[in-house]
């Protein structure tokens, strides 16, 4: 069997084996994870991977030179080899080139899955990075040697991806998706060891913040959520980083803008939910002050009227009950927006985030306060914001009691009739909301319907 046949067969077999283990492994023996880590370390060894890539690139060069001479295209007499080379091309064309990155990704995913199983406390517990409640206790059951080895592995993987970040510039690169997926897995593993107290030589909070400000990475289906989950996990468990990370998360929510991404709204919702989790571990005051700072973003719009600032619109009853001191309002957020599209995106993100945070917290007093503040924004910014407010309030309405539900319905009715806000687009928005509420049994409408 030729070298190429052995190599490609082994890679494909490894991919199949890893997939089966991730799908079907339910419990592990005490020494399995130790032995697995040793084997994974050997398989993702730098020298081995360089040798694999070098052999694969020599195949690709040969194939390219053979193509230029059509007479020699079928000069290889080995049908198995020909089949494997075609398979290699097919994998490359679908964005999964057989090579070092595929090997790394599958092995790291296998290791990640094994960690979750090893730390499972009950049989029916959901396996995964979430939930974040009790995160540190859950993963502290891993032995020190295992955590140390995972820390090393994760750090080396993130380091090697960061060092070769050119793929980020080229969306057509077949390696971009694989690299970002590998980065996501490595990030979660690094986060586990970081929270359990293992020193890691990369500055993990800085890595997370650098991903947050990069739309390409945040738009990735795996890396975006991994970044948000890791940020929330660190913020909730390592209080020295909480303030900085929460601020970065808040800024991400406000400034998230990617016209090419179809899942931006979903990403903002995930981020808002994580922010709610982070803030709920601090205090109610912090939650309210953050919500105020978000509302103030709408107030900072040039078209908004400044006759009554957000802080003076406080329902006294609600505030006295939660002992909120409005002097602790988080500092206003500076916006540097260049276009109207960006401005509209920011306002939409803010309303969506406020609704999601209130929905996640399910606190009656906070909900009452936000209904008042958001209700007073109708007609004060622009039509786009009015539409977002309709959906945002609808989301909040799914967790409130009857009294506040009626307030929201009255607000919706009022905006359709008030000359300052009424227009056919808004009327249609309110009507489509009611239509969707009549057809949905459970769940809640999203801000964009």
């Amino acid at each position, binding site marked *: 069997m*030729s*070298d190429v046949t052995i190599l490609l*067969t*082994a890679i494909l077999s490894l991919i*199949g084996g890893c*997939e*089966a283990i991730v*799908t079907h492994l339910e419990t592990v023996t005490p020494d399995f994870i130790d032995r697995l880590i040793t084997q994974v370390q050997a398989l993702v060894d730098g020298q081995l991977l360089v*040798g694999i890539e070098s052999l694969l690139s020599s195949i690709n060069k040969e194939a390219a030179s053979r193509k230029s001479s059509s007479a020699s295209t079928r000069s290889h007499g080995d049908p198995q080899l020909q089949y494997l080379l075609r398979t290699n091309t097919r994998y490359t064309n679908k964005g999964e080139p057989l090579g070092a990155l595929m090997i790394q990704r599958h092995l790291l995913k296998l290791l990640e899955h094994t960690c979750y199983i090893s730390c499972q406390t009950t049989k029916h517990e959901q396996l995964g990075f979430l939930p974040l409640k009790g995160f540190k206790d859950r993963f502290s059951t891993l032995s020190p040697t295992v955590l140390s080895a995972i820390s090393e592995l994760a750090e080396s993987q993130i380091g090697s991806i960061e060092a070769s970040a050119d793929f980020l510039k080229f969306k057509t690169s077949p390696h971009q998706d694989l690299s970002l997926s590998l980065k996501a897995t490595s990030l979660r593993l690094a986060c586990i060891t970081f929270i359990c107290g293992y020193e890691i030589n990369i500055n993990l909070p800085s890595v997370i913040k650098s991903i947050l400000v990069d739309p390409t990475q945040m738009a990735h289906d795996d890396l975006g959520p991994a970044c948000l989950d890791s940020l929330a996990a660190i913020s909730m468990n390592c209080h020295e980083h909480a303030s900085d990370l929460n601020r970065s998360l808040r800024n991400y929510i406000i400034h998230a803008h990617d016209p090419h991404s179809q899942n931006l709204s979903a990403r903002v919702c995930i981020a808002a939910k994580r922010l709610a989790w982070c803030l709920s571990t601090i205090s109610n005051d912090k939650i309210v002050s953050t919500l105020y700072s978000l509302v103030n973003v709408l107030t900072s719009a040039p078209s908004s009227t400044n006759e009554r600032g957000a802080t003076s619109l406080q329902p006294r009853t609600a505030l006295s009950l939660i002992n909120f001191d409005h002097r602790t309002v988080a500092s206003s957020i500076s916006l540097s927006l260049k276009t109207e599209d960006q401005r509209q995106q920011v306002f939409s993100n803010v309303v969506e985030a406020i609704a999601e945070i209130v929905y996640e917290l399910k606190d009656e007093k906070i909900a009452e306060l936000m209904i008042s503040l958001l209700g007073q924004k109708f007609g004060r910014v622009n039509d786009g914001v009015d539409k977002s407010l309709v959906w945002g309030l609808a989301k909040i309405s799914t967790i409130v009691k009857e009294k506040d539900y009626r307030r929201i319905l009255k607000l919706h009715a009022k905006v359709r009739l008030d000359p300052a806000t009424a227009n056919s687009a808004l009327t249609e928005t309110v009507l489509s909301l009611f239509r969707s509420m009549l057809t949905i049994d459970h769940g809640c409408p999203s801000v964009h319907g």
Partner: protein
Amino acid sequence: MLYEQYAPILQEILIAGDIDMEDTPSRQLGYSLAKTVLQIGSLSPKLKIRSQGLLIDYLEKVQRAFMDAISYEGSHSN
């Protein structure tokens, strides 16, 4: 006669790989073997220890295959 006329075209299509839609046998075999070993392991604690040991041995074999391929290529290119 029709077959003789179209056989070379069909052969071209097969070689070009347009009809290669399924997972390769190597990947399928790797998946099935690992799955079967895990299923056997779920029958008793002793079998579980043995089966998980087999999975580690399997990964070692893959590593050896990689090293063999690289050393084979190295010796032939020299």
